[in-house]
Each structure stands twice: as C-alpha cells, then as structure tokens.
C-alpha cells in the first residue's frame, strides 16, 4: 500500500464532494445558532431530547442487531449450502429493499393491525384482536424487514470470496463446524457486516415512513411534528444536530470494527470455492425459515398492494399509471444514480488509498446527509439552491444533486469494497510498462472497479426511486414521479389509486438489483462446475464477482 501518497486531484475532488455533502449540516448549524448556543444546549439536554436520544438509539441498535441476525445465516445458507432453489432465494431475499417503508409500513398495519386482515382470517378461530403492533415492536419489525438486505448483500459477497482452506485448516486442527464458523469465518466477515450494519443503523435513524405509521417516537417523527406546528427549523435543527452527533458515534464505532482490511492480500486471485455443506434433514428447517421471511417481507406487502389494485379495478377507479410517470421516475433516479456514483469515486479512492485527517474528514462528511431526515436535507438545499445557484433551482439538476447528497454513502461503500480488492501493484505494473496515469485508470483501474460502481449505482437507483421529501420539494414544478403519485393518492386515503404506481415503483426499482444478483449467481454456478478458474481469468482480475462488491 502506498499510504499517504494520494494524488492531489483526488484530494481536491474529494474535498469538493465532502463540502457539498456537508451543506445540510452547515445549514443546521446556522439555524441552531440563530436561537443562541445556550438555548440550543438547553433544548439538547432537556428531558425529552435525552429520552428521544435513548429511544432512537435503542431502535437503531435493535434493528441493526436483528438485521445482522437475519442476514448472516441467510448469506451462509445461500452461499455455502445445498439449499434447494438457492438462486431463487438469493433474488427473493434481496427484493424487500425495493419496498418503500411508507408503503411497507402501511401494508403491515392493514394486515397485522389489531383488527387487520389477518385478524379477519383468524376470527372463526375465536381471535378477537391481534396483539398491538404499534410502538417499538412494530417499528423494529418493519424497519428490519425492509432494510436487512443492506447487510445481506455485502455479507453474501464477502462469504463468496472467503478462502475455504483457512476453514479446512481449522477443522483439521480439531475445531468443530460451529467453533470454526465463530472463530474463523465470522472474524473474516466482520468488515462486511460492519459496512452493512452501518447503512441499516443510519437508515433506521433517518427513516420516517415506518416510525410514523407504527407510531414510534423517534427523532425523525418528532422533528416532523415539531416543524409542522411551528414552521420553524431552529428547534428542529438542534434535534438534527443531535442525530448527526449520533451518526458520528456510529461511524467511529464502525471504523474501529473495520480493522485491517487489506483483502487483496488475504486471498490469492484463484481462491477455490468451498464444497457445499450438506444440509440433509435440516434442509426443511432452512426452507421453512426462508419461506417465512419471504412471505412476511415480500409476499405480504405485495399481496396487500395487489388486493387494493384489484379492488380499484373492480370499482373502476383510475389506475394513475402512465408512461410519463414511469419515464420521469426512471430518468430522475437514473441521473441520480449516475451522478452519485461519479461523486462517490474520489471519496472511495481517498478512503482506500489515503490516510490521515483529510480522507477521514471527507468520508465522515459524506455520511451527514444520509442520517438526516430527507425533509431537513431538502429544505437546506432549497435554502442553498435558491440563493447560490439560482438558475439551477427547481431544475432536474438540483434534484439529482439532492439525491447525491442523500445517498452518497451507498455508492461510496460499494465502490470502496471493490477498490479494496485492487492490488496497487497492478496499477504500478501498468505505469512501469509505460502507460500514463489516465491510460492506467481507463485500462486497469476502471475495469477492475466497474462491478462495484455498477452495484453501487443500482443501489442508489433503487433508493432514489423510493425517495419522497426531496422529490416533492426540489423537483421541477409539475414533475411527477411514481413516488409522488403514490404520495398524492395515499395522503388523502385513495389507496386503490396508489396501488398501480406503487407496484410499478417496486418492480422497476427491483429490476436492476435483481439482474445484478442473478448474474452473480449464474457465475457462481458456472464456477462450481469448473473448480479451476483459468489462468487468464484470474490474472485479469475477472474473478472479482459483481455481487461481492455490493456496498
């Protein structure tokens, strides 16, 4: 590693991206100082704020822990065992990510509410009411079910590139299967678990859909209530800054957990694939668990939307789904994904190859938009946009910029993990052989990192498709997307009219992700048939599978 010798162009670009990402943070600080530091301090240390801090942290922790508890065994089942229909499960268990929490949360309440649909089925059995799902338990369940894939994707990727010979050594030396998993496999998975857990934890801090529908008082919900009533961002900004502080704590913790991560040294380019573990009769237990998960996280929400769609069609309600809407959504999210991936490059490069104050600062700044409620970020960009870049205000570019500020970390994470696998010696070899820095970038670095860039872009695309507050506030006036259409219909209770755009939204945002994951499993299956990768493949670095690099 050439730690410390960072090209200055990358540093400058990284700082620019970091500064852009820190705009919402700067805005909050300005607003908070408007009411004075002592008043801000008073608000931050009030009993209510402290309770919020504790409740919100507990929720984020619980969601993260549960997500890890679901994702790690699931990754193992789908990568390392002979689970029947692995490829199907790989795709199905990733897809809940495409369901926005404001849709998923609603379907949960209507199905599992005390007098919801499920209670209706159980009524003949004498079930009068289902237990309350509102409050902590409901928010925990819904947030976990729609965000655990953030952990699943990187863990599955990491598990696929583990070198089985280390585990075999452990088994030969007398450790059992479980002990080997805990003592040998888990430590190697730690960086990928940490990376996914970080996305889940910060997502749980900033999400509004689930906590409002399931009535759990988190920071985000209180920020909304407060700001609706007072039209004043000063108290809200104190809460926002507390959220950012919480984020910094989480980030520092995550960076400790990362530890040393020089993956390109950990394994040779031609790592063998581990033999599939025979599940034998445990197969049925595993199948039942996967089925249950997919039923709850995917089939249930989709069925409720389908139920409303059928009801709407029967009642001859307008479907509210047009080509224009689909194109508008795809265009905004596509541009968002593209710009975010480009902006993420210098941040990822700095974080992988640089060391010291600047790279760490840039990486942390890049997270500040992600952990803040979307509406706070959007309003701060309104303030900035209309005053500083007036001609861009309420154009598509302003919206795309907002998407980049909001979702930068998703792309940084994906690009970062694939950069970690690029041995600097490859680039050095290219330079030695006479290629200039740009030729080296184009012909060596870019092809190696491309899978990570595409995976990151797919993830950002999916998240942009669901995004609501920034789209409502910053899109060009009159620009409707599938998400705003769902909002327009549900906010006034026209659920049947929301069903078609909601379904389209989920299918469209899931498509790129499903294709990426599917492509990877195809490669895996081919690999299993050809245990010895050809020399050409390994040396070209083509053995870095796509899905490994998601996040």
């Amino acid at each position: 590693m050439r730690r410390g010798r960072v090209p200055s162009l990358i540093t400058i670009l990284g700082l620019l991206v970091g500064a852009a990402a820190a705009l919402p943070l700067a805005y909050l600080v300005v607003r908070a100082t408007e009411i004075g530091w002592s008043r801000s301090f008073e608000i931050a240390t009030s009993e209510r704020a402290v309770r919020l801090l504790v409740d919100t942290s507990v929720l984020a922790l619980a969601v993260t822990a549960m997500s890890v508890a679901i994702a790690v065994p699931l990754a193992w089942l789908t990568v390392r065992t002979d689970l029947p229909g692995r490829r199907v499960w790989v795709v199905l268990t990733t897809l809940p990510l495409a369901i926005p929490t404001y849709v998923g949360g609603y379907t949960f309440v209507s199905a599992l509410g005390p007098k919801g649909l499920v209670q209706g089925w159980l009524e003949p059995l004498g079930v009068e009411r289902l237990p309350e799902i509102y409050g902590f338990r409901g928010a925990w369940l819904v947030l976990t079910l729609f965000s655990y894939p953030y952990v699943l994707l990187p863990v599955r990727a990491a598990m696929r590139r583990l070198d089985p010979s280390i585990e075999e050594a452990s088994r030969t030396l007398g450790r059992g299967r479980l002990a080997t998993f805990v003592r040998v496999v888990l430590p190697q998975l730690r960086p990928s678990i940490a990376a996914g857990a970080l996305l889940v934890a910060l997502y749980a801090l900033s999400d509004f859909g689930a906590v409002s529908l399931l009535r759990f008082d988190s920071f985000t919900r209180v920020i909304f209530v407060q700001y609706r009533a007072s039209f004043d961002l000063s108290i809200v900004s104190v809460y926002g800054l507390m959220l950012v502080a919480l984020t910094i704590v989480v980030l520092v913790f995550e960076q400790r957990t990362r530890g040393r991560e020089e993956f390109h040294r950990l394994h040779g380019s031609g790592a063998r694939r581990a033999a599939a573990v025979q599940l034998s009769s445990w197969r049925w237990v595993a199948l039942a668990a996967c089925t249950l998960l997919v039923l709850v996280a995917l089939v249930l929400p989709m069925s409720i939307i389908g139920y409303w769609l059928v009801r709407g069609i029967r009642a001859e309600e307008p479907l509210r789904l047009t080509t224009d809407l689909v194109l508008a959504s795809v265009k905004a999210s596509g541009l968002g994904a593209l710009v975010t991936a480009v902006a993420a490059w210098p941040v990822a490069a700095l974080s992988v190859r640089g060391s010291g104050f600047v790279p760490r600062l840039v990486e942390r700044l890049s997270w500040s938009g992600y952990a803040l409620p979307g509406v706070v970020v959007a309003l701060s960009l309104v303030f900035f946009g209309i005053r500083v870049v007036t001609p861009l205000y309420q154009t598509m570019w302003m919206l795309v910029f907002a998407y980049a500020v909001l979702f930068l970390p998703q792309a940084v994470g994906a690009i970062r993990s694939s950069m970690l696998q690029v041995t600097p010696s490859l680039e050095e070899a290219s330079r030695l052989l006479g290629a200039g820095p740009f030729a080296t970038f184009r012909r060596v670095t870019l092809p190696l990192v491309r899978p990570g860039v595409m995976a990151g872009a797919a993830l950002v695309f999916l998240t942009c498709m669901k995004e609501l507050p920034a789209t409502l506030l910053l899109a060009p006036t009159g620009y409707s997307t599938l998400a705003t259409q769902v909002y327009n219909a549900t906010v006034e209770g026209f659920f049947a009219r929301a069903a078609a755009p909601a379904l389209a939204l989920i299918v469209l945002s899931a498509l790129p992700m499903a294709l990426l994951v599917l492509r990877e499993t195809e490669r895996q299956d081919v690999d299993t048939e050809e245990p010895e990768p050809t020399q050409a493949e390994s040396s070209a670095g083509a053995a870095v599978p796509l899905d490994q690099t998601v996040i």
Partner: protein
Amino acid sequence: MVRRWKLLAAMLAMFALIAAGCGDDSGDSDDNDDAAPTTLPGADDDPADDEIPDETLVVYSGRSEELVGPLLEQFTADTGIAVEVRYGDTAQMASLILTEGDNSPADVYYGQDAGALGALSNAGRLAELDQGILDLVPEGLRSPDGTWVGTSGRARVVVYNTEALTEADLPASILDFTDPKWSGRMGWAPTNGSFQAFVTALRLVEGEDGARAWLEGIMANDPVTYDNNIAIVEAVAAGEVEVGFVNHYYLQRFLAEDPDFTAANYFFPSDDPGGLVNVAGAGIVDTSDDAELATNLIEYLLSYEAQMYFSGETFEIPLVADVDPAEGVPSLADINVPDIDLGAIDDLEGTLALLTDVGAL
C-alpha cells in the same frame, strides 16, 4: 456485461409499454418534458425562462393532486391561464415559501389548514386580497387582515362504528368524552394538523385550563393514537376503536369505495368546539409577479363551478352561498359552527407545548 444491460433496457421498455397499455394515457406527455431540461442549464439559455413562461401561474399546493388536480386543469381550460403546480404537504409547502424567501417562484399558496395560512400571513408572505373576493366568504372563515380566504369547509366530527353504536349513544359535547365509560374506546391523532387546530380553538373557547383538563381527561381514558384521520376512520370501521375525532369528508371517500363501510359521522347538535369548521384556503404570495392572474385563480376557486366541485368531488362544505353540499354532508347553515375566528387560531406552538406537556405527543 453489455448483453445484460441491453436486456435490462429491453425489460424497462417493455414495462413502460405495459404501463402505457393499462394506464389512462394522459396524452399530454409534453408536460414532463418541459419541466425537465434535457440540456445542461446555463449552457446556452436560462432554464427558468424555458420552463415557466411569464403568463404561467405557479401554485404551491398543500392539497393533493388527487383532490384538486382536475379543478386546476379545469381552470386552465376555462381561462386559458397556464398553471404549474407543485403538490406536497400543507405545512411543507408553507415552509418551502418561507425558506425560499424573496426569490420564491410561487404565485399562489393553496393549503388545507388555516394555521398554515396564518403562519404565512404572520410572516408577511401573503399579499392583501380584493375586498370583493373576501366578501364572498363568511367572516371567520377568512383572514382577519384580508391576506387569505377560505375556499371550502372541513368540519370536525366524531366518526363512530355503526355496528357498536348508534347516534343516541353519543354525547352532546366533545367535552363529555372524558367520561370513564369511553375508556379504551376512542381513537385520535394528536400529531394531525386538523386535530391541533381544534385544540387551539378549544384553548380559545374553554381557556388554557379547560383545554388542559379536557386533554388530561381524554388521556386518562387511554385513547388509541393514530397517525392521521384516514387511519382513524379505517380503525373505527374495523372495530379497533368505537369512536374517533376526525374531519368529516374521509368517511364519504371510504363510502364511495365501499358502500358497506361500517362507520358514520356524528355532528354535534349544538355549537360545540368539537364541531369546529376549519378551511382549505388560498392566498397570493407577496413576491408574486403575476398578482392579477393569481387573483383570477382565487376568484375561480370561489366560483359556482369550483364550489360545486368541492361539494361533489372532495365532499367538503361549500363556503359560497347557493351551493349545496353533497348528500350526507350538512351545509354551513345546518351545522352549528362554533363562533371561532379561524384567523385567531394561529398559536400552534402553544398547542404543541400543551400537547407535549400532557404527554399526548
């Protein structure tokens, strides 16, 4: 790699086609294209000029497109005045104007809560309206300083489950719901703007102590908290709770989708604070450069056609004389509107403090 992306493109195209096939094609595909510049702005021309010609009215609507979209389209059809609408939440669209400051592109603000209109007015962001327009609407349902006017009425009611209760079981005043017999049977939405407007009115009518006593009495009866009015109406019909405090028109929407919906509205028989009539209303943004066109729109919202639209489509109460409300909705004259000036219920912060203090928030 390339093949895969081609496949993806093909699938997207196919999906778009399917969507076009089953959706009601709007036919005006130009709208979106105009709004989204395809070239980098600043390259050769100013996109703001491109998108919004001078004769276009920009409306920030806190009312959903589902509710008022067809009406605003009809306005353009009738008057030839082009309208660009930004749809969103009532409070968010108001703060958008406040955050934008003097550069705000908005000409008209159209929201569905007198409190949000009052906040904009208090911040000096609404221009004065013509007296002729103001006079169309009864006093108390428009701004006291003439900066906004109510366009349709939204009555607070008690929605009840028709399988569990009849109208005779319900008390004469909302104040009586503090009776312990209602324990565990009520639903409410303390985070909801309309509910908070009602509490502000209650503070004016019953005084701070009276409002606090009522809230504490309700809290003692373990009300089930919901996120919004729609959730309450659904929960009441499902029997999760027996009664709920909501706005009147949600029920009509559910009845339109499902005639067997097991809930009904109860209007208080006397002029009770529980029967507060809030409004959706509009005002002209002070920085508008199209005040004349904006005035046309607000006049239109109070025209016979628009008032008929509110009556028939959104099930709200028409505010202009000679327009009848929908079946099942009382007219302004038939309900006992409590004597509360909506312009005076702008102290939402005080209400929020009270709700927080009694533990409702």
